[in-house]
């Protein structure tokens, strides 16, 4: 196991983490501010990827594809909030889970109805394809480096939005006391629509960026959604900083666990058993991490609510 391999795996873990952050940020904002469990968040991820693939197929431009992913996912988010979610703020979490689960089915079958069952084509633009050589002789795909950069930029942008702008103050106030800010004359329903659309747009962006190196197909969002929930539980629900730290932890644990656990097991047992046992334990590792964090801090690393 060489140093180059380890550094490459850490980069892979980081890249996975920042993409999870794009999903987790929207989820945590929506849960933190509106108290809503949104299972349909994975659908916005899928909608973004399909919008990007459709636009890239017609125009051939990757930049336009990303813009389309943001806009279409934001519109889908705003529409869903106004038509369905708005009626659920007062309901308990079970109703929200049921309704948003129904939305998953509607989005999945709707997408299949429009685009068919076959996976769509979406590929990295020529300027970002292929590997680059990093200092130390590490060959790493340029596109994945770009993903890390985009993820960090979005984190910075969100931090600025929430800590330094008027909208950010309203969002933070909404997290603390929604009746009070409504009483202060802020249009709370407009704020909710905006947050929901923002969260959906981030999920759509993640879908387009990740769909480029994976496969754009119906149902692609749900596995990511589960991981994003793990991230926000680890980080503390409602906290952007927590979502970021949680996402990076999950990304690194999942990537490094998959590599090092089988190697570790090989010290004790024969390679075939070590491989199988290591692979199984690696897929459990993030949930073990989550349990440990929750035992240590029941509200998550940066969670405020008791």
């Amino acid at each position: 196991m060489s140093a180059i391999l380890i550094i490459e795996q850490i980069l892979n873990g980081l890249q996975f983490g920042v993409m999870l952050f794009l999903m987790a940020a929207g989820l945590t904002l929506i849960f933190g501010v509106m108290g809503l469990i949104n299972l349909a968040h994975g659908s916005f991820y899928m909608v973004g990827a399909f919008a990007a693939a459709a636009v890239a197929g017609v125009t051939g431009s990757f930049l336009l594809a990303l813009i389309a992913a943001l806009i279409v996912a934001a519109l889908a988010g705003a529409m869903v909030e106004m038509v369905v979610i708005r009626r659920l703020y007062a309901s308990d979490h079970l109703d929200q889970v049921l309704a948003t689960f129904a939305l998953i089915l509607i989005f999945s079958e709707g997408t299949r109805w429009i685009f068919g069952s076959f996976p769509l084509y979406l590929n990295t633009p020529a300027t970002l394809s292929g590997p680059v050589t990093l200092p130390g002789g590490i060959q790493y795909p340029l596109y994945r480096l770009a993903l890390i950069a985009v993820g960090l930029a979005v984190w910075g942008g969100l931090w600025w939005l929430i800590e330094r702008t008027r909208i950010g103050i309203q969002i933070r106030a909404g997290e603390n006391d929604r009746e009070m800010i409504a009483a202060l004359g802020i249009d709370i329903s407009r704020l909710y629509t905006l947050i929901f659309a923002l969260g959906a747009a981030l999920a759509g962006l993640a879908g387009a960026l990740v769909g480029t190196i994976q496969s754009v197909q119906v149902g692609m969002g749900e596995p990511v959604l589960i991981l994003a929930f793990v991230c926000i539980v680890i980080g503390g629900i409602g906290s952007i900083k927590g979502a970021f730290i949680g996402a990076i932890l999950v990304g690194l644990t999942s990537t490094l666990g998959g590599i090092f656990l089988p190697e570790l097991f090989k010290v004790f047992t024969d390679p075939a058993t070590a491989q199988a046992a290591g692979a199984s334990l690696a897929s459990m590792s993030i949930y073990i991490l989550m349990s440990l964090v929750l035992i240590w801090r029941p509200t998550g690393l940066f969670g405020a609510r008791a």
Partner: protein
Amino acid sequence: MNKLLTCAAALALCAGAASAEIKVGMITTLSGGGASLGIDARDGFMLALEQSGRDDIEVIIEDDQQKPDIAVQLSDKMIQSERVDVMTGIIWSNLAMAVVPGAVNQGVFYLSVNAGPSQLAGPGCHENYFNVAWQNDNLHEAAGAWANQTGYSNSFMLAPNYPAGHDALTGYKRLYEGESAGEIFTELGQTDYAAEIAQIRASGADSVYFFLPGGMGISFLKQYADSGVDIPVIGPAFSFDQAILQAVGDAALGVVNTSQWSKDIDNPTNAAFVESFEEKYGRLPSLYASQGFDTANLLISALETAEPSDADAFRAALKAADFDSTRGEFSFGANHHPVQTIYAREVVKEGDIYTNKIIGTAIENHADAYVGECSM
């Protein structure tokens, strides 16, 4: 006049009902992530029926949603209330294991268009079960044989951590004579292979064998092409069918895969099949479509000599496999699984379409490894 028309319509109805003498139940996957396989198999099957011109075969098609429990319900309904004579269509091995043993034990004939789990080829073989596609290990074994022919001696192997993934690597290693540079079982449904690709890069392998069906294969191939690792890749045809290739694009070009069928197998049946499929459905057929087409033609050939009600004669007619296969020569081994030639294909681009071209024969007249365990 009106009265006359009603009579005519009623007569047509009566005639229609009376002439549908053979009932075929098709349970296949038409929704969800694996739908493209079921759709292709169904379309190939229906194309062959249409071309035969027979109007006495009624096909009842149901969607199993890739769920074993639903497949079992559908099969019970087809056998008990629809009283089908023949069943077919199942794509996935876990569904086949849930449905086939029960169906054949109730006297129904089952013709498999795709799934060929080892249990049904070995100790669990049955006189009413025929597999027109393959035994699951076949394409993996052929890939191992092709690796030997190409001179690969240090393969890195990759498959998802589930039964078919373990079978895949077992199948590959059965004929492969070189060393192992590493074996990884990935999570089923995994979409990011950066970590595995880094291990491949560091392993010093001279070839990579992977079995990642569906969306997993799309992700792997795109990421592999982008990583700059240039170790040659081989895989079974499952990751290189017509639907998947269009989503992978350039990243698949030049990759070698093993298949018992290819659109450029040179025989008149195959040429006519490819042309008529493309004309009817507006897309190139996949190997699943060819398997559906062959299954229907096997059924039609058997119906020409015997009725399913005469089970022994019908079974013998199926066993004879007296039909023109898209694969050329076709015969069944003792366990009712095909003995067939498997080719190595390379992914090429024809115009705007990505497709496969045969570059050699991986293994000839190959039966499966389990035939000895079958007591028929």
